[in-house]
């Protein structure tokens, strides 16, 4: 099953539609989103860990643990997530 979600990747100009699977972990979701942004529209930062959190108005949600799956996190079609560098 393919789940189209909205990737709000740190420093990107666009919110992108990224297809994930419900069983993917947040680390895998971050990597899937990074594939479409880092090195395409955002400078890549090798070695820096990416974190994932729900998009909120205040940009202040807690990140999900990397091992949590999209399904367990309750991510649904067109949900928007922030993908950001851990040291930022």
């Amino acid at each position: 099953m393919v789940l189209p979600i909205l990737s709000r990747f740190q420093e990107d100009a666009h919110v992108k539609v990224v297809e994930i699977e419900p069983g993917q972990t947040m680390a895998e979701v971050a990597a899937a989103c990074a594939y479409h942004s880092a090195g395409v529209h955002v400078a890549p930062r090798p070695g820096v860990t990416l974190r994932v959190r729900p998009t909120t108005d205040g940009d202040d949600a807690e990140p999900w643990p990397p091992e949590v799956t999209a399904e367990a996190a309750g991510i649904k079609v067109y949900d928007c997530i922030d993908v950001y560098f851990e040291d930022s």
Partner: protein
Amino acid sequence: MLGRSDWYDIARDTNWTPSYVPREELFPPSMSDPYGIALEEWESFDEPYKVSYREYVQTQREKDSSAYSVKAALARSNFYDQADEGWASVLKLHYGAVALTEYQACQFQARMARFGPSPSMRNMSVYGMLDEMRHAQLQLYFPHELVNRSRQYDWAHKAQHSKNWAVLGGRHAMDDIMMTRDAITSSIMVSFAFETGLTNLQMIGLSTDAANMGDFTFSNLITSIQSDEARHAQLGTPTIEIMVRNGRKKEAQQAVDIALWRVWRLFAITVGIPMDYYIPLAQRHMSFKEFMHEWVIRQWDRQVRELGLDTPWYWDRFLDDIENHHHCQQGGIWSWRPTVWWNPPGGVGPKERAWLEEKYPGWNDSYGRYWDVITGNLLNGREEKTHPECIPIICNMCQIPISNRPGPAWKARPYQRDHGDRRYNFCTDVCRWIFDTDPARYKDHETIVDRMYSGEITPPTLDAVLTYMGIGVFSEGGKDAHDYAWAEEFRAQAAE
């Protein structure tokens, strides 16, 4: 013989009282005036631009003669053989976006000519209808001779029959403000918000740049069209005055606020991107931002307040958008260039970037970072990385990719609304507000992305989307206008 001033007002204002059918049947409120304003009020409608049919025909004939003779003269030169490919892209974008939209405008004027509650409004709209027909014919005929240079010019005729994402954006907005409203609301939305507010962008902005490019055909064409717009745009002002005088300020205000935003989102792309990126640096006469402030912000806002309306509630957002929206969409359109029918120039070589930083302080630290990645890919043999393998989410109102300032500011975010069993994504709180004004009106439309996941486009792949949008069908899609020469300038600069 009577002088014109002796008979004009009587002829123009002559109305009749229907006796075979009730007035409501002749002028159904849903097509005419849904606000219930008294007929006597509408009969006070007085637009300042008075013209008789004889004068109209004579003037239009002279305008047409001028436009066609300039075209014929330039056709004998080799201008289009030598013109910069960036300028060719301006023409392809313009004709595809505008030519058949003029036919829609003709139908809009015809609705006012038939259902306008005021006789003088109906009279003026007849001229407006003929104006728009002339504009459509000119803008179909002029690009036709260019089709043998590139099939991409054929989008002048084909675009509005396609499901290209950029066309969906224009069609959604024009269907909303121009094709599906009553005569009164659409006259406020189109004649005032659109034509009075923003078509100056074309006349003074694009037309001056066209003359600087040496394209006197296009410059003359646009000026000729705008001289009509300046006349029939006058229809909106007395409509608003009557609305405000009769306790309908709130409704008039909402119509202005919706339409200005809807048309602005499109014009920033069709005019702002060409002015700041497509036209070669040497031929630019002012930045899009300078133009917007000098010709739109100051003049239009003053006019709004003189009419008794307020500045649109989203004015701060609008001012910010003037410095942001078209830069984001230039990046997006260039990145997803195979999806459009013109060849977008990057327009971000060293000199162009210095100009952008001067005109838009902070450009380098925001949009510049986005282009740094692209430039690096081009200079290091990774051209394939300049083609994203996914799609951006599209706004459910303006149908434009949801984007905002990149870099440290990181402003891009969707404004969402759950309604019924669907989730809607919007680029801004303004587009979401427009949806909220009448969800039943907008809820069933699907963006190109929605269509990928609703089963209309199968399989939901980039290749299938391109075919669905007419790319590879009507013409090839876009590629960089200058084969990445702008990026190579950085290599040359580094070697110096």
